Every structure is written in C-alpha cells, then in structure tokens.
C-alpha cells in the first residue's frame, strides 16, 4: 500500500515526449532571454504561478506601506496631544499648514492604513497570491480554468490600486476605510480624492469577482483524475467558499460605491438626509458586502492552517468533512449578520435579530478550532516556522473569536462598539488570523515557490518577535477600549496614555519581527536548494518539482489517496526511513483496497 501516490509510470514514456524546441522542464521562472524579453514575458504571462508571484510582490509592497502608516498612527498616539502627524507627514500629504490643520493628517493616516490593509493586502493576500499559485497545483491541474481572465484580474487589481495611489498622491482621504455617509459625501468638496479612492475600491472589486469565478470553475472542472470533492485539500475548500462570497457579495459593494460617487457628483439624495436620503442605508449596503468579506479575509487563512497542521503534525486532519462544511456554513451565515456592525444605529428589532444570528457564526468557527487542536493528538509534530505560526494563529484567533462574544451581545456592545475594544478584536482576527496564517503559509510554501529553503532559526525568531509584539500592541487596546477610549481619536484624555505607550512599543517589536522575516526570505534566495517535498506532505503541490515547471507536472497526476493519509502512505519523493508507516490495526485496512 506504500506506493499509492501518483504513479510516475502510469503513462510510460510521456515525460520524454517533447524535448523538441524549448525546455519546458526548468523552473517556471527561468529566464527566457534578455532582460526585456523577461519583462515582456512576465507582463503577458498566463501562468498562474507567475501571476501569483506578481500578486505576492504587490501585496508585500502594500503591506509594507500599510505597516508604515500603522507605525505613524501608533507613534502619533504616544502623546495625548498632536505631535508628529502634523509636522513630519504634513509635507508628504501636501498640507502646508502642518499642525494648524488640526487632526486631518492623523485622520488620513488611519484611513489609508485601513483602506490599504483591507482592500490591497488582506483581501488579495491569500486568495489571489497564494491561491493563484497553489490552487491548480493542489488540484493537479496545469493552470486555472481561464488563464487569460486570470491575467486580466491581475491588471484590474493593478489599475484599481493605481487609482487609490493617485488619491493618496493628491493628499489622501479622511473618511475612514468604511466611507460612512453623509461624512464621505460632504468632505473634501472641491477635489476628487474620495471619488478616486472609492473608484479604486470599485475597480479592485472586479478583480475579486473574476478571480472568484475563475477559481470556482477550476475547482469544479480541473480536479485531477481520481480526486473527488472530499479528496481535495481543505485549503481548496476554503478558497472555494471564499470564491462564492466574492462572486455573490462584491457586486453589492460595487453598486454601493458607484451610488456614493453618483451622490457626490450629482447630489441625487440616496444617502444624504439633506437631500432626502438615509445615511444608515449606506451602512446596510456597505456591511452587506463587508461582513461576508470579513470571511473572504479569514476563510483562506483557516484553509492555510488546515494544511499546515496535518502536514507538520504528520497526522490525518480530524473531522475533514466538518471543517469543509464549516467553511460553507460560515459562507451561508456570513450573509445574514451584517447588521451586527450597526447595533448603535439600528432599530431595536433589527438589533435583536442580528444579535441572535451573530451567535450562530460562533459555532462553525469554534468547530474548526476544536478540529485543529484535536489533529495534534497522537501526531508526530515537527516544530518549525510554519507549525509555530499555526500555533500562534490558534492562540490569537481564539482570543479574537472569544472577544467577539461581548460584541455580539447587545448590552455590552453598546458600551464597546466604536471603542479600542473593537480595534483590538478585529486586529486579533484579521491580523492575528489572516496575516499570521499568510506569513505561516508563506514559510510553508516558500520552498515550493522559490525552490530554496529559508533559515529555520531566523524564521522562528521572527515568529516569536511577531507574537510578542502583536500581543503587546493589541491586548492593551482591549483594556483601554473597555475603559472608554474611542477609536479614530487623534488626541485623547491623559488617562489612556500609559496603554497607548505600551501599545506603540509593541508595534515597534512587530516591525522588528517582520523585518527579520524579510531579511530571512531575501537571504534564502541564495540559500539551500529545496527538495521537492521538504515537509513530507501528501497534497499534490508537493508532487511537483520545487519550483514547479511551467506546466506544473511532468505528466498529469492520478490521485490514489487522500491529502491527509499520513502514516498510511509514504509521501512523494520521500523514503519510508524518513516517514515510517504506522502499524495497521488488525482488520482495519479494508478502505485502502483499490
């Protein structure tokens, strides 16, 4: 039974068939000729791997920008009164009045931090960057279903972010990333920065929709022979659920943002009460999209954790179907709970119904956490950077989830909403969840993407620094939120200063942690060459070479075992010495007969 992995001899001689004009068997990123030939090749590539790498580079650049903005915000908050924001960044934002302009600079800083991190980093991070690279590989396919559409999605994302960049160049916006009306329709009346920023988000939405569509079709049509729905890695299930949300919810934000632009330009009176509109309607529209999108952000992160834990624990994942169905369950419920962002502006009946529905989301999420932790039981756990990140994810995400409870309950929410408690809560989920999973996944698949191993010592060091820095930064924000610190405050009463100072120190530790990772990754490009399957994993991307060839596989893999049958089959390219098989319980092998 130990030879159940895709058989290289299934199509004899196939691998040697076309060695004719071009070498298709080198790494996907190998040079095609001169520098400009390569630039043209990357700009016009329809290879999902190259597109994934381009997304990855863009996401990392925007993550850097968003991070710098966050550090500026934290540094400003060291003192209760205005300090650096007016002076240092005033020039960057073309505000010659400096400190006389009051808190406007600070308000732009936190708005841009939010907008960049949400629309340009977290939403595309896992699905577009890692998803693009991995989805066809994990399915055993050559590419996504519509490779040219995939390239188009990338260009739409790119041009959307250019619009946002243009808005920042002209001075940025100060609406908050949520663009709440009527503030967003009345601020900045003479210029078009809000319109540019909103247009950027609108355009990037199409990238989301097309990528989602592409992935859904790919999952349905391009699974390798022998791979049923329940033989797919759980990362695929997560990406699949995410894609459904992207296709269904993104058009809503598209039309909402378009209405916002129409409102600003033509004053048609949908949201502005001065013209007969309803400002809370915008919040309904906005959160009808943005709440499901919270799960666009977190589900793929959960998918990564569902890969990392069984691979490095060398253990079949506990409750495969429960996790898969929990992804779909979260997708369904996510469309019903948008009102919990608006308890303080809703009518009483709406608030009550949304509060009750909100608690339903807790169930599938909790089930996933139980499953992951139980997967560790009786495993064979290798402690390395990806595994450490998975544990950090479980730690931080559990706190993020549990702190959702007082926000879901009505009476406590009326105290905590729009306070730093909310800020801390969604950073524990979005950053402690998605970004932590993303960085963990980046380490996990780094050997596959680059063909090189990163340095494990520095990877672990960076992870520990990020963990400490993260908790120092954000746990303090829970406390000051309950004590009464409102969010989006450029200045604050002195009582909160001690917590702000501690939080800011934490953000600097975070910076050091991420810089360690950055240098580790750069150094790894000249580091040890990665084997095809360094972790002894069973999903198909590890069957391909590291890095994969242009068409992913020398020949189409045929799936004969599940992605998590650890201990039952020897992983691809590995020997039984390194990954010994388990002793079979007597009479328990019936299911492996083929």
């Amino acid at each position, binding site marked *: 039974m130990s030879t159940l992995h895709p058989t290289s001899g299934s199509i004899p001689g196939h691998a040697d068939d076309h060695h004719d004009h071009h070498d298709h068997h080198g790494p996907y990123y190998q040079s095609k000729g001169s520098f400009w030939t390569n630039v043209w090749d990357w700009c016009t590539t329809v290879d999902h791997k190259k597109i994934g790498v381009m997304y990855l580079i863009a996401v990392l650049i925007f993550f850097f920008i968003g991070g710098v903005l966050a550090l500026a915000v934290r540094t400003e908050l060291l003192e*209760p009164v205005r300090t650096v924001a007016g002076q240092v960044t005033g020039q960057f934002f073309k505000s010659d009045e400096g400190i006389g302009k*009051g*808190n406007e600079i600070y308000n732009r800083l936190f708005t841009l931090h939010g907008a960049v991190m949400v629309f340009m980093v977290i939403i595309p991070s896992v699905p577009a960057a890692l998803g693009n690279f991995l989805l066809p590989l994990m399915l055993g396919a050559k590419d996504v279903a519509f490779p040219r559409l995939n390239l188009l999605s990338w260009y739409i994302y790119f041009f959307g972010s250019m619009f946002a960049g243009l808005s920042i160049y002209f001075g940025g916006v*100060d609406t908050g990333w949520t663009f*709440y009306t*009527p*503030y967003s329709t*009345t*601020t900045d009346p003479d210029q078009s920065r809000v319109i540019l920023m909103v247009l950027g988000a609108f355009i990037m939405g199409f990238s989301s929709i097309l990528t989602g569509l592409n992935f859904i079709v790919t999952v349905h049509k391009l699974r390798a022979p022998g791979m049923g729905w329940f033989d797919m890695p759980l990362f695929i299930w997560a990406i699949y659920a995410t894609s459904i949300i992207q296709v269904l919810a993104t058009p809503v934000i598209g039309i909402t943002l378009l209405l916002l632009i129409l409102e600003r330009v033509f004053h048609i009176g949908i949201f502005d*009460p001065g013209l007969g509109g309803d*400002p809370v309607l915008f919040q309904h529209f906005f959160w009808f999209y943005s709440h499901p999108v919270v799960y666009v952000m977190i589900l793929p992160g959960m998918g990564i954790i569902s890969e990392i834990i069984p691979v490095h*624990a*060398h253990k079949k994942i*506990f409750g495969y*179907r429960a996790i898969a169905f929990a992804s779909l369950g979260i997708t369904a419920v996510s469309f019903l709970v948008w009102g919990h962002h608006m308890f*303080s*502006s809703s009518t*009483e009946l709406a608030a*009550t119904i949304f*509060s*009750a529905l909100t608690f339903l989301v*807790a*169930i599938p999420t909790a*089930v996933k*956490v139980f499953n992951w*932790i139980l997967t*560790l*039981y*009786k*495993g*064979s*756990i290798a*402690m390395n950077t990806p595994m450490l990140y998975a*544990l950090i994810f479980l*730690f931080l995400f559990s706190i993020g989830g*549990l702190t959702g*409870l007082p926000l879901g309950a*009505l*009476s*406590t929410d*009326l*105290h905590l*909403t*729009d*306070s730093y408690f909310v800020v801390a809560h969604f950073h524990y989920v979005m950053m402690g969840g998605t970004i932590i999973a993303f960085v963990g996944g980046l380490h996990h698949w780094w050997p596959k993407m680059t063909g090189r191993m990163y340095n494990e010592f520095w990877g672990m060091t960076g992870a520990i620094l990020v963990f400490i820095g993260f908790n120092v930064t954000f746990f303090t924000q829970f*406390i000051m939120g*309950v004590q*009464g610190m*409102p969010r*989006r*405050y*450029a200045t*604050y*009463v*002195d*009582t909160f200063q001690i917590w702000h100072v501690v939080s800011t120190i934490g953000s600097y530790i975070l910076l050091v942690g991420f810089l360690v990772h950055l240098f580790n990754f750069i150094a790894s490009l000249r580091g040890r060459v990665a084997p095809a399957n360094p972790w002894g994993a069973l999903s198909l991307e590890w069957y391909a070479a590291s890095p994969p060839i242009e068409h992913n596989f020398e020949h189409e893999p045929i799936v004969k075992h599940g992605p998590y049958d650890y201990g*039952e089959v020897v992983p691809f390219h590995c020997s039984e010495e390194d990954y010994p098989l*388990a*002793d079979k319980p007597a009479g*328990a092998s019936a299911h492996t007969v083929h």
Partner: protein
Amino acid sequence: MTSDLINLAGGTFGNLLAKAPIDQPLRDIWFRSRPSATYSAAVDDLFMWIFWFSVIAFVILMYLMFYWTWKYRRSAVKKPILSTSHNTPLEIAWTVLPLIPLAYIFFKGFHGYADALIAPQNAMELKVEGKKWNWLVTYPNGEESPLFTSSTNPDSDITNTSTLASTDVPIYPVPEGRAIKLRMNSLDVIHAFWIPDFRIKQDVLPNRYTSYWFQSEKLTGSEKLPDGTPKADHWIFCAEYCGQSHSEMMAILRVVPEAHFDKLMADWAGNKPPEVIGERVYKSQCASCHSVDGSKNTGPTWKGAFGTQVPLENGSTALYDENYIRESILNPQAKIHKGYGPYSQMNSFQGQLDEKRIDGIIAYMKKLNPGAAGAPAAPATDSPTK
C-alpha cells in the same frame, strides 16, 4: 422551560465567579471606573461572565494545544500512530453544547439592551444635538449650560484632568439619583454619544431621533466643587468618526445635588447681557474652529477682527461689521476669508441660531476688538474704513 434552565445555570456560574477574590480587582482594571448607572452594573456583570467563560475555554484549548504539541513532538514519536480522525458523538457534542452559553449571553445582552433603551415615565428629558464638533444639550426649561472647563471658571476643577481640557470643554450638570433620558439627533453627519462610565452609547443620526436613558448615581462626596458641594464628573465622547476634530468632540457630564442643580437652572434662566450669551454660544458652537486668542484654526480667529477689512478668497475685501458676521453665520460660502477657501468648511447655521444668539455673537465679537468702531466701552476715535 429550557430558557429557565439556561438562566439558572448561567446565573449560578456568574454568582460563583463574583465570589472569586480576583473578580473585583480584574473589574477595576477592565473598567477603571465603577458602574454609575443602574443597568451599567448589569453590563459589567455580563462582560465579566463572558470574560471568565472565555478564560476557561481559552485555557483548556491552549493547555491541550501546548501539551499535545510537546508530548507528540517528532523526536519523541518514532512511529506514527493511526488514531481516529472522526468521532460523530464528540463532533455533535461540541457543535451543539456551545449553543447553551451562547443563548445565555444573547438573552442577558438583550435584557440589558432593553433596560438601557426603555426609559422610566418620570425621566427628565435632555435634548442632545451633535454637530461638527460640539455637543449641544438643552435642558427642559430651554436653557443651555454656560459651564466650561477653563482656568477662569470656578467650576473647572475637573478631576479627570487632561492636557486636552486646557481647551474649553462644556460641562452639563444633572441632578443626582434621577432618571435622565436623552433624545438625540445630529445637525450634520453621524455622531455617537458615549458616556463610558454609564457603559452606553447610541449613534446620533441626522434624520431621526435616537434615545437612551441613565440613572445618575447618588453622590458619595469623594469629589467636591470648590464651594464644598459634592459632585461626580463623567466624560462624554463622540464615538462615531465625524472628521477633523472628532477626538475633541467631548464634554463632561457632572452629577450634582438636586438643590445645586435647581439653583443653576434658576440662575441660567435670568436675563443676561448679549455678550454673555454670545460667549456661551461661542464656546458651545464656534470654539472648535475659531479661536479668540489670535491663533489660526479651521476658521479664522475672532480676536481683533470686528471693524477691520477682511481679505476675501476672491481677492476683494469686506468690512467686518454686523452684516458680515450675520451673513457669514447664515451663508458661510458667500464671503470666504482668504486662506480658508476655496470652499468654507463651515455649515450654515440658518435655523439653528435665533436672533438673540446672533446678537449675542455680534456683541461678543465687538468685545474682542475694543478699539474698533461701534465697539462698546472704547472711544470711537478713528474708523478703519475709508
């Protein structure tokens, strides 16, 4: 029936925790202030219930995670063990059982919410208006509070001292031990009226009223006014982002004895000279953008402005007289001070300031430039106009 059982179990859990010696010190860290209003104690109780529930769940999960990660580390496991990857009763249990505490949290939260929104019949109603970037509170007798934190005000010794309180923060006195209902709306964008010590906020919307109530506490006498009258100060913050001076849109709710409150009400209702009315309107509605000390803010300073020639955005000038002030209040876009355009940040106060208040502002601005023509208490020797 089921809900009774859930309530009983949840209540027992809460009572047990409240007896733990660490409960109160932790509450003091989390909340900093003891609950002031009646229902806010219930908010604290629910928060602490969820907190302890979360701590227990978290500790169990993390214990298992770290223990198994250590016990089954690869160097200690020579041969993988095939254990079950699926257990239907266990999976059903952990899907269904969490519904019980969740149901308890939901119902408790709903009860607290209903308690905060449904005011008693005899509640005193305060009208709250939010505008960029001030709170306006109108008392049942139609008066507004003239009290502000400042070095010249004897009432200014707020205990929550703050670097920010050097700017004038309005103080709204309310009588102790009374049910007070807030009826709130906004004059421009969305704001939110948050009193952290009472654990409650609601958004303040431009197109409909929102409302909640609170019970002011009985004074303990730990804080006192300079004349020895007991008091208790509570911060009011704007919690919904509303633009440039969002973070300075704050006020202080001051609980005072009933007799002191009645005396204040009687004092405010008396006739006042226009410049006193003007100063009050300035502090409550204009000070977030206009200074009276000559410094530049969102709008131009009022110091020494009256009677001068104003340079305008369109290159011409205008005489800073009574008509210019009136026009700028009612139609701010008409003549914009140079350096504050091309569009004025100011909204029209048409319908918000009555004649008495506009007269007051004019009188106050005259007072701020004693040398100018038409200003009181100064000999009008020369006119700056041609």
